[in-house]
């Protein structure tokens, strides 16, 4: 019995000591033949389940496809949420996170980021013609946001007397706004536009206020894998320069879509 106990302890200790041997992610991905990307599945138009095919599609998925094609591998998407995306990346469940994630200094301690692939800023979605015109009008009122997001923390900073009600996804927060449970929903403008136009009567809602904070989105990558990071960054620049980025952008945010946001920023391009 003692021997069994010793063996069991040894196995447990070993299990905790043995961490996956570190090789470059790019080699791993090529060997596996698939790029595993953590994406949103409830965030039109960045990542959501398509009505006809029941597959996850969206702006971020198209960029991931571009990366996978360049590597010559297949793309495999895994649904993540704002609270699971960083642990899933650090645990190696996904190779890259493309899930509307703001590049923040705070997060640099845990993961690395690509260059900015989408630029937006945090604003407020409110009922049209209502009393709320800026974040100051929300003093001691309720604001809806999402758990683990930057918007949650920024809103608290911008208006300390407001109560932040956190939901699992943005559509849930919007639903709370419709039902009058919160006075405003705050997050990146790009997401707010998506929410607004997903409603039957988009004209009933307004996006107001100055940018509470700029929100540059970056792809999340594991720490200290510069080969993968270089590959992603260079690919993004190539995509921008070849016009492929604009094509993908227009597919999801162009004039003919219901999520129209003019392309007003320029990607950081290294000479």
């Amino acid at each position, binding site marked *: 019995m003692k021997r069994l106990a010793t063996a069991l302890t040894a196995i447990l200790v070993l*299990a905790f000591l043995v961490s996956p041997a570190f090789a470059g992610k790019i080699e791993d991905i090529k060997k596996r033949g698939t790029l595993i990307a953590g994406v949103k599945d409830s965030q039109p138009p960045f990542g959501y*389940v398509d009505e006809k095919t029941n597959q996850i599609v969206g702006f971020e998925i198209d960029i991931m496809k571009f990366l996978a094609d360049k590597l010559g591998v297949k793309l495999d998407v895994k649904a993540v949420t704002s609270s*699971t995306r960083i642990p899933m990346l650090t*645990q190696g469940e996904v190779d890259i996170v493309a899930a509307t994630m703001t590049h923040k200094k705070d997060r640099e301690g845990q993961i690395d980021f690509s260059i900015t692939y989408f630029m937006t800023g945090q604003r407020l979605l409110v009922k049209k013609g209502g009393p709320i015109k800026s974040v100051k009008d929300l003093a001691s009122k309720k604001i809806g946001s999402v758990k683990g997001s930057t918007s949650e923390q920024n809103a608290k900073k911008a208006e300390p007397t407001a109560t932040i009600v956190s939901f699992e996804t943005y559509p849930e927060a919007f639903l709370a706004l419709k039902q009058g449970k919160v006075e405003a929903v705050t997050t990146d403008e790009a997401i707010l536009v998506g929410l607004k136009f*997903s409603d039957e009567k988009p004209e009933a809602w307004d996006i107001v206020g100055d940018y509470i904070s700029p929100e540059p989105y970056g792809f999340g990558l594991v720490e200290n894998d510069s080969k993968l990071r270089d590959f992603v960054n260079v690919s993004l620049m190539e995509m921008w320069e070849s016009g492929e980025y604009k094509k993908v952008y227009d597919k999801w945010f162009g004039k003919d879509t219901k999520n129209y946001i003019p392309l007003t920023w320029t990607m950081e391009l290294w000479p």
Partner: protein
Amino acid sequence: MHWDVVWNNFDYFLWGAYPKGPLGGLAMSILMALGGIFGAFWLGLLIGVCRLSKRVWLRAPAMVYIEIIRGTPLLMVIFWFYFLAPVIMGKSLPDWQSAIIALIVFTSAYIAEIVRAGVLSLPKGQMEAARGSGLSHAQTMIHIILPQALFNMIPSFVNQFVSLTKDTSLAYIIGVSELTKTATQVNSRTMKAPFEIFITVAALYFVVCFVLTELSRRLETKINRYQARGR
């Protein structure tokens, strides 16, 4: 009302993107529930019997296991196991398998307590008579005590299994595309029919749980009749 949203996505609620993609929706929920019930029953039985043992090295670990698991929210167990599994096994498990194991771990603690209560509720004379007639402790457990006790436990088991079936909805936290997750996905895309979508989901859960309780009721009558004949 927008019941057309529910109607158009009903296949997605039932089996997800299958066969063109991974299985999901209600089919995934049922799969997880069945896997969970099967695993939790046997593991719970084992732990319950260990908990009753006179040997400290069997009883103490079982007790610690039961107490720790019962004092932890299921959501935590699911989340925690998902990130612990790759550390223990050296490779990551598919999210649904990880969820099933978490459900088994969680529910088996409750099953173990049901087993313990069921065995203790039998008159002491059963054990004494069997031991007196020369059976070993293990033989007595397997042939005399458990068959009687397990029958008495059926209602408690069913209770636990029904709650396990509903608990599969918590697997959405780690991204398993089960019924609740598919509903959330469709709801986020359409935005106009949250009431219709979630009432449909509730109805689907109800149907599955009702079928489960109904089946167990039939099983009980059947065993009752069988036992009456034996007497």
